[in-house]
C-alpha cells in the first residue's frame, strides 16, 4: 500500500465500479451482499485486478474463500464495517554473534523470502534482517546479516545499468569487510547476472553467491528458505571466492549446488532443480552440515586479495539465434541499427546457411564483431570440421569454443566497453577470465539421463529426485 493517493475502488472499472459506488461501499468494506437468487454473501470487498473484467465484485467470505458476484445479480450491498488490511512483516531483531561471519545480502528485487497478503494474494517481500529472521530463523545460526536493497526490479528487467551498480555495491561491501556476499535475484536471468559479474568483479577475496527461488516463499513447499540458508552458509563458510549460483541440486529438499557463474544456465521453466552447470561439473555441493567440493579448480577465499572492479560495457550487442531459412536482411538490419557485436547461436558445430554469408561479410566489413557459439549448449563450436564452417572462419567469424551463448553475449558487451579493435576484441573474447571457455569437456559434463531406459529408471527409483 505505497500509493500516496488511494483509490477506494481499487481495480474496479465500468459496471462493477458503478455498482460499488451506488451502494456506497469501498474496497475493504465488510459487507452483506444479496443476489437475485436470494443468496447472501458476507465478507470483505477485495481490490480487483485491472486485467479482469468489469462485471464482477470480489468478496472474501468469512470462511476464507473468495467469490465473484456479477453486478447484474446484485440486489443489495450493505456495509457492515470497514477492515482495511495493513500488512507488516513482523520484525524480530536479528541476533548478533561476534563469532559468526559478516554477510551482506544485496537485494535486486527477486523475492527470496516473502509473506503473502492473505486477502489479495499479493506477495510482500521480506527483506530486512529482522524480517528475514522472522521467516528463516536458521540464518541467525550462520551469520551476522546485513541487508541492502539495491533496486526492486524483476529479474527480466535487469540490465547493464543494474550490473554496474551491483558490481560497485559488491566492491563497497568487500571494502567494508564482508566475509561473503549474497545477491538475491530472480531466477530467469540469474545466469546472465552471474556471467557478467564474473567479468566485472574479478579476484574477489570472498564468495559472492547469487540465490533465488523457483517456488515463491509464500508456499509451504518453497525452496526459498533452504536456498537462502545454503547461500548464507556458502558466503560465510564456503571456500570459493567466485561469483557463483547457489540453487537446489535435486527437486527434493536435500542439498544445493554451487555453479560457476560463467558455465551455468536455467534449464527448466519451473523445476526447482533448474540450474545446471553445462559442459562441466558444478563446483560444490552444499547442505546445512557443510560442503563437498567436487573437483573443478576454483579461486579460494583469501581476505588479503584485492578485488578488481571493471564495469566498462557497450550494450549495442545481440544474440542471433539461427534457424533454417533465416533471411539475411535480419543481419543487415542489425548493422543498419548500429549494433557493434553479434553472438550467433549456430546449429551443430557452429553453422548458418550459405545465403547468410554475404550479409555477415558486409557486417564484419562495417566493423561489427561477430562470434559463434552453439545452440546445442553442450559441446564446442568447431567450425573447421566442415567446409561451411571454414567459409565462416574465412569471413572473419570467430568461434568461442564452448562458451555459452548468454555468457558470450555478456562478455562481448563487457569487452566492447574496453575496445573496438577487432583483433583485441577477439583476443579478449577467446581468453577465458573464469572458465567461460574450457580446454576440455569431461565426459560427465554432459549427463542428461534419458527417462524410460531400464537402467536409468532403476537409478532414478533408488534416489530422491
Amino acid at each position, binding site marked *: 500500500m505505497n500509493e500516496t493517493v488511494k483509490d477506494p475502488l481499487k481495480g474496479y472499472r465500468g459496471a462493477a465500479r458503478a455498482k460499488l459506488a451506488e451502494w456506497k461501499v469501498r474496497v475493504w468494506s465488510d459487507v452483506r451482499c444479496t443476489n437475485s437468487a436470494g443468496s447472501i454473501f458476507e465478507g470483505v470487498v477485495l481490490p480487483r485486478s485491472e486485467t479482469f473484467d468489469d462485471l464482477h465484485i470480489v468478496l472474501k467470505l468469512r470462511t476464507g474463500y473468495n467469490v465473484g458476484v456479477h453486478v447484474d445479480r446484485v440486489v443489495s450491498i450493505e456495509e457492515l464495517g470497514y477492515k482495511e488490511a495493513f500488512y507488516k512483516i513482523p520484525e524480530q531483531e536479528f541476533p548478533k554473534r561476534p563469532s559468526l561471519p559478516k554477510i551482506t545480502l544485496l537485494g535486486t528485487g527477486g523475492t527470496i523470502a516473502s509473506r503473502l497478503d492473505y486477502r489479495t494474494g499479493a506477495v510482500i517481500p521480506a527483506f530486512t534482517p529482522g524480517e528475514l529472521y522472522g521467516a528463516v530463523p536458521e540464518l541467525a545460526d550462520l551469520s551476522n546479516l546485513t541487508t541492502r536493497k539495491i533496486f526492486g526490479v524483476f529479474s527480466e528487467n535487469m540490465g547493464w545499468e543494474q550490473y554496474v551498480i551491483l558490481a560497485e555495491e559488491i566492491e563497497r561491501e568487500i571494502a567494508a569487510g564482508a566475509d561473503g556476499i549474497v545477491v538475491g535475484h530472480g531466477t530467469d536471468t540469474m545466469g546472465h547476472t552471474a556471467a557478467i559479474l564474473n567479468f566485472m568483479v574479478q579476484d574477489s577475496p570472498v564468495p559472492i553467491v547469487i540465490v533465488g527461488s523457483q517456488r515463491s516463499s509464500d508456499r509451504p513447499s518453497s525452496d526459498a528458505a533452504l536456498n537462502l540458508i545454503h547461500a548464507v552458509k556458502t558466503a560465510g563458510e564456503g571456500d570459493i571466492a567466485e561469483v557463483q549460483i547457489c540453487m537446489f541440486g535435486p527437486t527434493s529438499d536435500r542439498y544445493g549446488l554451487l555453479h560457476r557463474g560463467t558455465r551455468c544456465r536455467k534449464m527448466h521453466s*519451473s523445476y526447482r532443480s533448474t540450474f545446471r552447470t553445462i559442459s562441466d561439473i558444478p563446483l560444490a555441493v552444499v547442505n546445512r552440515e557443510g560442503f563437498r567440493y567436487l573437483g573443478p579448480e576454483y579461486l579460494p577465499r583469501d581476505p588479503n586479495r584485492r578485488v578488481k572492479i571493471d564495469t566498462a560495457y557497450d550494450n549495442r550487442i545481440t544474440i542471433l539465434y539461427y534457424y533454417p531459412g533465416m533471411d539475411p536482411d535480419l543481419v543487415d538490419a542489425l548493422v543498419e541499427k548500429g549494433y557493434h557485436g553479434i553472438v550467433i547461436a549456430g546449429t551443430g558445430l557452429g553453422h548458418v546457411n550459405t545465403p547468410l554469408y554475404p550479409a555477415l561479410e558486409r557486417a564484419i566489413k562495417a566493423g561489427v564483431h561477430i562470434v559463434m557459439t552453439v545452440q546445442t549448449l553442450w559441446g564446442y563450436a568447431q567450425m573447421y570440421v566442415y567446409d561451411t564452417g571454414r567459409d565462416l572462419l574465412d569471413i572473419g567469424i570467430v568461434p568461442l569454443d564452448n562458451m555459452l551463448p548468454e555468457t558470450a553475449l555478456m562478455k562481448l558487451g563487457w569487452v566492447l566497453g574496453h575496445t573496438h579493435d577487432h583483433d583485441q576484441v577477439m583476443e579478449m573474447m577467446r581468453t577465458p577470465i573464469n572458465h567461460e571457455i574450457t580446454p576440455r569437456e569431461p565426459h560427465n559434463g554432459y549427463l542428461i539421463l534419458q527417462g524410460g531406459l531400464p537402467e536409468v529408471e532403476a537409478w532414478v527409483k533408488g534416489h530422491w529426485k
Partner: protein
Amino acid sequence: MQQSIDYTEIGLIAGLEVHQQLLTKTKLFCRCPSGLYTTEHDGTVLRHMRPTLSELGEYDGTALMEFKTKKNIIYLLHESNTCTYETDDTPPFLINQEAVDVAIEQCLMLGCDIVDELHIARKQYLDGSIPTGFQRTAIVGVNGRLPFRGRELSITQVSVEEDSCREVSDNGHLIVWRTDRLGVPLIETVTGPDLRTPDEVEEAILLVGRVCRSTGHVRVGLGASRQDVNVSVRGGTRVEIKGVPKAGWAPALVHGEAIRQVNLLQLRDELHQRGIKSPEAITIDHRDVTRILASSEIDFFRLEGWDRFNESHDRREGFESGKGPFSVRAVRLKSLRGTLEHPTQPDLTFAHELQGRVRVISGLDQPPIMVHDGSWPGAAAELKALRSALHCEAEDALAVIWGAEEDTLTAAEEIRLRFADATLGVPAETRQPFADGHTNFERILPGPDRMYPDTDSPPLALGRDRVAALQEKLAEPPWEREERYSAAGLPRNTIHFLIRRGGARLVDLVVNEAGADLRSTGFFFGERLKGLRRAGLQVDDITDEQWLSWFRLMSSQPVLAEILDEVVAWMARHLGNDPNAFVEGGLYGSEPKDWRQHLRKIAIGAQPKNPDGSQSQRLAFLMGLVMPNLRGRIPAQEVLLEIDPGANGKRDGQ
C-alpha cells in the same frame, strides 16, 4: 457400549462436509489421467514443509503445529498418473472445464445457487498430503437445500477441489505418500449445522450421497466418497471427525464425540474447582530419568528396548527415529492427580487425549506412547523413586514419555499445552475415526487464516448460459426417482442401492430407450446383477450400447429372457460387442424346426434312472434332458406343455 444420553439435553449439533470424487478423464489442474491408481512407484521425492506467515504476521496454529512435528515427507511417484504438477515443479494448468461442469451439475442437484465467478483459493496443509503445502479449492455453489425428514437440510456451500495424496505409512518422523490420487477433482458439500442425533447424521450422509450419485458423473467405489462430520455440544466446540469412510460408522462416532465433549466440560469444571482456571495456571516441570529407569523391568524404559523398536520398524537414527540420544522423561503435573483417569470417550480416559497429541506432534509413537501414575505398568518402587525425583506432592500427577531426546522435550511441552486447553473446555481439533467408534487426535482445526488466493490461477466467470444448459440436462433428483420406482413396486432398499451404485441411470436408460419394464429392469440391475458381479464378471464395464441392444432384443423376443445370465456373462467378456452376435450365433430366439415331433420322440422312451413312478419326477427329468438345447429358443412353459399337456399355470424360472 453405548452410554445412553439425551442428545437434546446436551445440545448436540452436527453438520457434514461430504467429499465426492468427480468422474472426469483428467485431473483438476493438470492433464494426468484421473482415477488411475498404482501400487508401484518409479520415482521418489523428499520434501519438508515450512509454515508461511499469516496476514497478521503470525503463523496459523495448525501450520505451526505441523511444522513442529518435523516430518520428513516422501512422495512415491508413478509416471502413469503423475507429472511435474503433482510434485509442485510446474504451476497449475487452467482448471479442468469438464470438472467445473460436473461440479456445477452437482450443485444444481443440491439445489444451490451457482456463483458468478470462480476464484481459486489455496488451503494450507502442512502434513505433506499435498506437495505444494496447500489444496487448490473454489466455491461453485451456495445456499442449497435438500428435503430431509419432513424438513430441510441446508447446503451452505459446495466447492470443487483437488484430492490429496494417499498415505502409505507414517513411521516416526517419516510420512510417505503416493501421488496417484492427488489432483483428482472432487466436490466438497458443506451442510448447515442442522443435524441433531447420530442417526440423522448417517441418514444425511446417505441422502447427500444419493443426490451426488444420481447424475452418474461421480466416482463410486472405495475411497471415492468420504465425509467429515462436525460435532459439538452445548458449551463445547466444533470438532471435525475427518474422513469417515462409511455412513454406517457415523452414529457411533457422533455419539462418542458427544460423550467426549460432555466429559471434557466436566474435566474443565473439575480443574476450575482445583483452582486451575486458565491455561497459564497449568504448571509442569520435567527431567530426564533415563538413569533411574536403566534397569527397569519395563522394556520401553530401557535403551535396548528403544533400539529393538527402531530396528523392527526399520528406523534410521536422525531420520525416522528423531534427533538426540534415547531419553526417558518424567513430567510432574502440578495439582493434577487423577485427571488423567478422567473419562472422555466411551471406555477411554484423558490420558488418551495426551497420547494422541504427543504422538502426532512430537513423533513419539512407541506404544503406549505415555504412561502415568494412574496406569503404572512397572514396579511400585520405580514409580515412588520417580515421584520423589520430581518432588511430586500428593496432589501432583506424574507422566512418563520416552524416545529421541528432542522429541521428549516437544512431548513434555505438548502435555502442558493439552492441559492448558483442558482449562478452557474442548479444543477445536480434527480427529481421525476408527471402525470401533473411537477417534484420535489428528491436528488442530485450522481457521480461515489458512486460506488465501491462488495467484497462479485466474478467476473464471461461469456465465448464466452455461448454468442454464446444465440445468436443462439435469438428472432427476433422487427423491423423485424414489417415488417413481416405488410406485412401480420396487422395494426401498433396492431403490437406494440403484441410486447409490449408479444402476438407476441404466434402469432409466433401458426403460426409456428400449421400452423395458421398470419393475423387472429395476430388479435386474438392483438385485440379480449383484450375483453376477460377485461371481467376478466385469458387469460394470458393459457399455450402454450393449445393454440397450440386449433389452431391445428381449422386448422383441421375450424368450431370450431365459438366457439372461449367459448373455450378461458374454457381454462382460466381450466388452463393447453387440450381444446380437451371441444370440444369432447360438440360434437363440428362433424355434428349431419340427421341435415338437423331436420332443415327443424323446419323451416316449426316456426314463429317470431310479424312477419312483411319480409324474413330477418324470417331468423334471425330461425338462432337464431337453431344455439345454431349447433354452432361449422356446419358452420353458411351452416345452412343459408339450411334454405334459396337463401342466399349466406353473411358471418356471423368472
